[in-house]
């Protein structure tokens, strides 16, 4: 394991690994949920947490160059005084690194309108698998040739290590409004999500929390969530004042027409912050319910949300498991959360069976395996559910073009010919 402090030291570490034919794995804070940064066998682990400087901020062009170990939230804090922010905001944003975000192509609630990490990364100085440093992408609009930056983002460390990253910053919107919609039935909340999109509104964020998680969060942080709701929607709109006002009114009307019991608009910044604190503390709150959890991540077409959710709860009932849902409803990104006590004999197999069935349900509905957590080890062997052998062959050849020796984080993302017995199903000790 090594802790480089510069691009040169990352390159030196990778060169040593390459010279000895030893695999290497890049790792930020280790918050990933798919096991992408978990070293297998005797891989060299290149930990980027010492590289945590914001190197340069250009407030006119709204670009920041950062080292990979900068924490996501620290970046937004560093540019706050300029009226700028970095849009992708994973729930782990207090702990996860920008380098890790690049690796997984991370998302977050505010990616609904502005896109996930790939839409915000302009350039990466990548240490490739042979130790050479290559600038992928650039700070101008277009780079000649293939979009190597686009390939690299989300490659989960299998194409090299991001040593310096240029990100796009967004101007803070003049007006932000956050609504909490309270529903007596989950289907009504899901129908409201579709209704909002159908009304021509793409909110900045559109999050759903079901009954169990809403209660857990309210007991945990006291954010003012209705403890008796079957589901709540947290909706945020931003922009210029009249458009925001019109959208708030439209969302209020859509929610009420779908049976919302109440719609509350945060009166001030403090109330708004509290509502978001509730959402972002969801995974801390569940520790009060059961000692263990398995968080899933899959995306379905938005119009299939109601059907898929219903089936997800059925699966939980069939497997006698407690299931909660707190997720990015606006883009169809589900996060079914199974809470359990691992000391209970036989529970793991039911947790895994439920997870597999959820994934099958999402794929059957036209969905994909992951919206923001990545494939890593967790879903590597599920890739054939959505890709043909030819599709996977294309991806394997692409990876080999970046890393002919196969030393960059091997055995992640793409399945081997056969399922490997040594791989754990759920990475342990991970942060949400």
């Amino acid at each position, binding site marked *: 394991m090594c802790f480089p402090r510069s691009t040169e030291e990352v390159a030196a570490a990778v060169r040593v690994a390459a010279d000895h034919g030893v695999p290497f794995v890049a790792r930020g804070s280790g918050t990933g949920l798919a096991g992408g940064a978990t070293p297998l066998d005797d891989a060299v682990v290149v930990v980027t947490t010492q590289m945590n400087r914001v190197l340069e901020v250009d407030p*006119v*062009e709204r670009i920041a160059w950062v080292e990979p170990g900068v924490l996501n939230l620290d970046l937004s804090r560093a540019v706050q005084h300029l009226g700028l922010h970095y849009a992708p905001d994973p729930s782990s944003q207090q702990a996860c690194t920008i380098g890790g975000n690049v690796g*997984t*192509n991370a*998302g977050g609630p505010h990616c609904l309108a502005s*896109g996930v990490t*790939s839409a915000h990364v302009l350039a990466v100085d990548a240490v*490739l698998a042979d130790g050479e440093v*290559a*600038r992928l992408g650039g700070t*101008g*609009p*277009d*780079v*000649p*040739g*293939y*979009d*190597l930056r*686009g*390939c690299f*983002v*989300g*490659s989960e460390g299998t194409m090299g290590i991001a040593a310096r990253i240029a990100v796009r910053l967004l101007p803070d*919107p003049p007006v932000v409004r956050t609504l909490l919609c309270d529903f007596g039935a989950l289907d009504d909340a899901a129908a409201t999500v579709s209704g909002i*999109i159908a009304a*021509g*509104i*793409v909110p900045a964020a559109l999050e759903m929390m079901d009954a169990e998680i809403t209660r857990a969060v309210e007991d945990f942080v006291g954010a003012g969530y209705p403890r008796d709701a079957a589901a709540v929607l947290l909706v945020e709109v931003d*922009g*210029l004042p*009249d*458009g925001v006002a*019109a959208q708030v009114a439209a969302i209020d009307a859509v929610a009420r027409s779908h049976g919302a019991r109440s719609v509350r608009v945060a009166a001030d910044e403090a109330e708004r912050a509290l509502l978001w604190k509730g959402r972002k503390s969801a995974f801390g709150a569940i520790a009060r319910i059961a000692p263990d959890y398995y968080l899933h991540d899959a*995306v379905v*077409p*938005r119009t299939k949300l109601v059907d898929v959710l219903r089936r997800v709860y059925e699966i939980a009932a069939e497997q006698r498991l407690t299931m909660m849902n707190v997720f990015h409803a606006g*883009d169809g990104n589900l996060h079914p959360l199974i809470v359990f006590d691992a000391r209970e004999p036989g529970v793991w197999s039911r947790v895994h069976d439920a997870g597999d069935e959820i994934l099958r349900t999402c*794929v059957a509905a036209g*969905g*994909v395996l*992951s*919206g*923001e957590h990545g494939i890593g080890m967790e*879903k590597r062997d599920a890739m054939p559910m*959505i*890709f*043909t052998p*030819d*599709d*996977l062959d*294309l*991806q394997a050849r*692409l990876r*080999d*073009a*970046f890393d*002919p020796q196969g030393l960059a984080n091997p055995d992640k*993302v*793409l399945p081997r010919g056969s399922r490997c017995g040594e791989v754990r199903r759920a990475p342990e000790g991970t942060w949400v």
Partner: protein
Amino acid sequence: MGVSAGTVAPAVADAVAALAATVATAPTVVPVGSRTHWEVGGPAPAGVEVRAPSGVLEYDPAELTVTVAAGTTVGELDAVLGAAGQQCPLDSHDPAATVGGVLATGLSGPRRLRYGPLRNRLLEVHLVLADGRTVKGGGRTVKNVSGYDVARLMVGSLGTLGVLVQVTLRCEPRPAASEWRRLGVPAAEVLRRAFRPAAVLTDPTGTTVLLEGFAEDVAAERDRLGASTVATAPAWPTGPHRGRISVRPAHVDRLVADLAGLGLAVLGEGGVGTVHVAAPTADGLDAARTVAHAAGGWLLREAGPLDGFGIDLPNRALMARIKDALDPTGKCNPGRLPLAPVAVGGVA
């Protein structure tokens, strides 16, 4: 009926199969759209021309995504989306351009400032590889990190990695109000004062701004900017020799002035860094390229005989390996992308 994930739509399956059979046996394959951007990059090679089928294959406005055959024109797509109050800003200045052609040439269009680059629109791609296999990259949902981003790799690849046959694009609501206004100030000044304008296009005599959004907001922005002069979309620079310059956005105003000083027709995208330039002669466009290089940028030839790129591709060896991995015999659009070293400048 819907398109099943993993395969091309039934409506185009036969056409794609025929295209794939042609690709598999042809020694050289040249994907053709509407030839509206035919001279972008390297010279068109001689070879077997193939055309992707056309047609909107699946569109559910509630999903805010649309799946089309790659030969569909951007005009047709815009009409279909417009009928549902939506848009997908593929803003080729020629509505006859095909979706596949716009993607392959990487044309982001003037509203990139607001709606982002083209590469952010493409969710799923089906392409025919050099050996005739039809493969899929990406996925149809608006959010997806399952596997490598093959879809993004295709944007701007100039048909050199395979033939695009079917794509899924992200759409968005059409703005309620949209108006062009004219100001006598540089782009940088407009960008400082406006909140997320759709486009800020600057020429030697002033700046034309496109305001989009709710009617009241657009009116308020217009008043705040003092942009009382109604305008139309500015004319695209035309001429037999055309190019698209990429520079850091901060250099756009200066570059526009410098290029105008050379007597060239020019239009810069403020806040984006793209500068469109047209010249009466190849030497004129070459001079524009020299100006672009001096500003740390580069010029992509879009029309005329000037060399396509004028620079060695960055990370050329890696790009060549990617090309080799997908198209080992080099049959897909050879010469469009200079994957071998090129001389700097000069007329091809």
